[in-house]
């Protein structure tokens, strides 16, 4: 019993990257089953013309949630399950750079997903506007379903999870490599995750901006997306995120397939550096191609041609990767084990997905493709085919490492063959349904789409049910499979040099890389992690700090949908949130959570002289810049396009704006001075800087509030889209500042009471950078929304 309680405590409070990885894995597969079931439901509906299995509303909800769950809560988290488990080991690290934040990003993901699912149980149903959630269909006017609010909240929690995870992975990959481990020597999977998180860093904030504006529309009754042409700004913000998102989903799987091909053909990859360069090029290009989703929205011809060009350009890096992957196998001793079969299957479907993608790059061809089943087939070939097959290959590949036991090879091969055939029966016919619109819940018989749809539905069941073989195989083998040694595949990377499953801190020594040799050296026989085996790496706060907002947002969504018992949930959620933030700070105050400091024997190029807290802050802010750019961009769009004719000069008092901006600026200067004080060990200077900065920022909040009060007092409302967007920007800025003030308060207390212990100087340094960023943003916001 006590053991079981300990087990429960371990899984709830864990901060160990391998435990978090397992949690990710189980959660991803859970959402896979739910989203897959939804898919089977609507495939039944579509199997014959004029079917009435699912009515239109239910069908749209199923389609929407299928898309959102598969993209955000299944494929990406499956990739990140492996990333959590294996990237630190492959780097030669004992954990992630921020173990508690790692657990936090898992719990935010889980509760975000649960929040989404809760939408189904709201009266009136959940979101039914497609995973792209085009405006203005997604607004209160056209989708009053209260569940849609929960979907938006769930996505916002997901974005929080992604932001935290992104920062964590970047710092980990940059600073926790084993001594001597050059970036170029890392396994392709780490490179895939590296480019994935880079894209996540800059892409997700754009979605965050779009969803923030949507929340303002839906909750505060603003008129942003319902303004004339207002929906277009959703397109921009969504697809600026949405195109990189496709590669975010694809890259972990694609990179993993490259590793698998190399290991199972016993040949190093051909042109490794070229492949890495191609991944980088594709990641960079992904930010400049998104208008191919908007070819028909009436954008200008020259703009359209630029995006046509960049979109076709992106076929070059992917073509290079594919061909090099295939040619790498020449001369190898190829073993067609299950993981290899999945990797080859992934490449096979990726070729079709890639070629069909080139068709979409052309505006003329897009006349037929846009909104049709051709597109459905194309992105399922890329996102399901290429990504899912490779990741399932990874599941088989790493299964012996995670459990210490081997799965049944025959069943694995049967799973591959059936799922590969089922997949193609499911999606290939859709290329021939080029004139059938997406997301229609039924179609008349005379369209002639019946037979192909029926074939696709048969394929869907074959594909869907084939995974039961995998679940059965793995669940059985987990307990009863034959035991394996460390390295059943003869692979080269670090995870195969440790026991299966790996010990708690991965290495029984210090990982060091000399030249191209990976080694684990013993430091005079002593185990360098012994002092950490005291259970002090468990923390309840990541769980609670996610549970609080979950309950709060659930309550808020229920309250908006006029469901009973909403208020108690809001109150309990708020209390848990505040208490868990307090708890987290208290742990830090007394330095109870001993997480491993990246020691001297770590490779930290190119950030050798930056502390990981500050580095993490930098990465967070680089992403956050895009969030504010999205909000400010929305304001600019409203002024240019959506008939918001009044400049900020008319609506605002520019002198109040100037005063607020100066206050913010000097608040940042004083925070910077406080950080210098901490570095110099000057307590008086640090405390004086912190207090002055706090006072000035509070004054900034007050002046900004006064200014906005005067705007609303004159009679301007959120019905004006320019007012609504600039008010949202100001609100986001103030909320950023308030969050920063919490940390400032904590630091003031800690310096006052305990001096510069722990990470205080580094945290204050990072906070000063944060304040500098907020000052820059306030200048930008002043310059644009008050003057333009």
């Amino acid at each position, binding site marked *: 019993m006590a053991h079981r309680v300990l087990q429960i405590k371990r899984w709830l409070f864990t901060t160990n990257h391998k435990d978090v990885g397992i949690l990710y894995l189980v959660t991803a597969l859970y959402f896979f089953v739910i989203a897959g079931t939804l898919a089977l439901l609507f495939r039944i509906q579509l199997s014959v013309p004029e079917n009435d299995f699912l009515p239109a509303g239910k069908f749209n909800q199923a389609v929407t949630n299928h898309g959102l769950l598969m993209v955000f809560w299944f494929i990406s988290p499956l990739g990140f399950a492996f990333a959590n488990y294996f990237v630190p080991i492959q780097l030669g690290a004992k954990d992630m750079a921020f173990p508690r934040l790692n657990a936090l990003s898992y719990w935010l993901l889980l509760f975000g997903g649960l929040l989404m699912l809760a939408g189904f149980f709201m009266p009136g149903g959940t979101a039914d506007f497609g995973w792209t959630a085009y405006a203005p269909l997604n607004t209160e006017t056209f989708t009053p379903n209260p569940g849609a609010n929960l979907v938006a909240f769930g996505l916002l929690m997901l974005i929080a999870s992604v932001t935290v995870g992104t920062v964590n992975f970047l710092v980990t990959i940059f600073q926790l490599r084993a001594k001597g481990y050059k970036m170029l020597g890392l396994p392709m999977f780490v490179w895939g995750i590296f480019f994935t998180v880079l894209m996540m860093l800059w892409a997700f904030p*754009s979605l965050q901006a779009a969803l923030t504006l949507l929340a303002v529309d839906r909750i505060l009754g603003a008129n942003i997306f319902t303004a004339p042409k207002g929906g277009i*700004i959703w397109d*921009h913000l969504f697809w*600026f995120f949405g195109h990189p998102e496709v590669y975010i989903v694809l890259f972990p799987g694609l990179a993993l397939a490259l590793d698998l091909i190399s290991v199972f053909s016993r040949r190093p990859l051909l042109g490794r550096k070229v492949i890495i360069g191609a991944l980088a090029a594709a990641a960079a290009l992904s930010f*400049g191609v*998104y*208008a191919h989703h908007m070819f028909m*929205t009436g*954008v*200008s011809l020259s*703009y359209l041609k630029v995006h046509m060009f960049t979109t076709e350009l992106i076929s070059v890096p992917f073509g290079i990767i594919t061909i090099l992957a295939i040619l790498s196998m020449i001369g190898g001793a190829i073993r067609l084990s299950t993981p290899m079969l999945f990797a080859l299957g992934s490449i096979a479907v990726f070729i079709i997905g890639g070629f069909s993608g080139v068709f979409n790059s052309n505006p003329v061809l897009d006349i037929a493709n846009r909104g049709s089943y051709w597109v459905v087939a194309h992105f399922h070939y890329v996102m399901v085919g290429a990504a899912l097959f490779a990741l399932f290959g990874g599941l088989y590949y790493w299964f012996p490492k995670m459990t210490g036991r081997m799965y049944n090879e025959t069943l694995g091969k049967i799973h591959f063959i059936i799922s590969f055939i089922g997949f193609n029966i499911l999606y290939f016919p859709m290329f021939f349904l080029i004139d059938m619109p997406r997301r229609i819940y039924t179609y008349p018989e005379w369209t002639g789409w019946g037979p192909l749809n029926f074939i696709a539905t048969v394929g869907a069941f074959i594909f869907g049910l084939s995974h039961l073989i995998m679940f059965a195989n793995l669940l059985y083998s987990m307990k009863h499979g034959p035991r394996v040694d460390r390295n059943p595949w003869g692979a080269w990377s670090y995870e195969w040099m440790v026991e299966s499953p790996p010990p708690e801190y991965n290495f029984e020594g210090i990982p060091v890389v000399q030249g191209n040799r990976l080694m684990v050296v013993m430091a005079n026989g002593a185990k360098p992690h012994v002092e950490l085996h005291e259970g002090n790496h468990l923390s309840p706060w990541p769980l609670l700090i996610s549970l609080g907002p979950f309950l709060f947002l659930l309550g808020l969504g229920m309250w908006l949908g006029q469901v009973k018992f909403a208020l108690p949930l809001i109150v309990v959620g708020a209390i848990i949130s505040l208490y868990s933030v307090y708890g987290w700070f208290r742990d830090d105050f007394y330095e109870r959570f001993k997480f491993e400091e990246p020691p001297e024997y770590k490779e930290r190029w*190119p*950030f*050798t*002289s930056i502390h990981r807290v500050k580095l993490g802050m930098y990465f967070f802010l*680089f992403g956050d*810049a*895009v969030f504010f*750019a*999205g909000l400010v*961009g929305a304001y*600019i*769009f409203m002024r240019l*396009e959506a008939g918001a004719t009044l400049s900020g000069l008319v609506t605002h008092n520019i*002198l109040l704006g*100037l005063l607020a*901006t*100066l206050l913010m*600026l*000097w608040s*940042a*200067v004083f925070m*910077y*001075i406080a950080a*210098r004080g*901490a*570095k*110099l*060990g000057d*307590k008086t200077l640090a405390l004086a800087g912190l207090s002055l900065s706090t006072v000035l920022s509070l004054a900034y909040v007050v002046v900004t509030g006064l200014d906005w009060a005067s705007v609303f007092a004159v009679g301007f409302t959120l019905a004006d889209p320019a007012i609504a967007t600039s008010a949202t920007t100001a609100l986001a800025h103030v909320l950023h500042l308030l969050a920063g003030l919490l940390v400032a308060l904590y630091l003031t207390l800690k310096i006052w*009471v*305990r*001096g*510069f*212990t722990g990470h205080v*100087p580094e945290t204050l*340094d990072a906070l*000063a*950078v944060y304040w*500098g*960023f907020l*000052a*820059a*943003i306030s*200048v930008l916001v*002043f*310059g*644009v929304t008050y*003057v*333009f």
Partner: protein
Amino acid sequence: MGEGEAQGAQKVDYAVRLRERRKLAWAVAVGFMSSALLMVFTLGVVTGALTTGAALAVAVAVITLFVAFMLMDIVWEGWGIQLFSVITVIIVMLLMLNIIFGRQVMP
């Protein structure tokens, strides 16, 4: 209570001291310079001297970047952070350019 302070004071060597003091002086200078620029900018707008959108945009971009690069320590960091900052600026510009030019010219 005084322990950490004393420790901190002892550890700080001369080079760090010099660097931090220089940073401090620069921060105050940036505060004054940006404030002055902001006031001039506002004055220009109020009096109508700065009327064209391009002039406004350039003024705002210059002050914003100035504040960001100085107060975010970016000028003091190595090339890694500077590279990431430049990429961020490019990506922000990409989003802005798309929003501004990805519009209809047709009626």
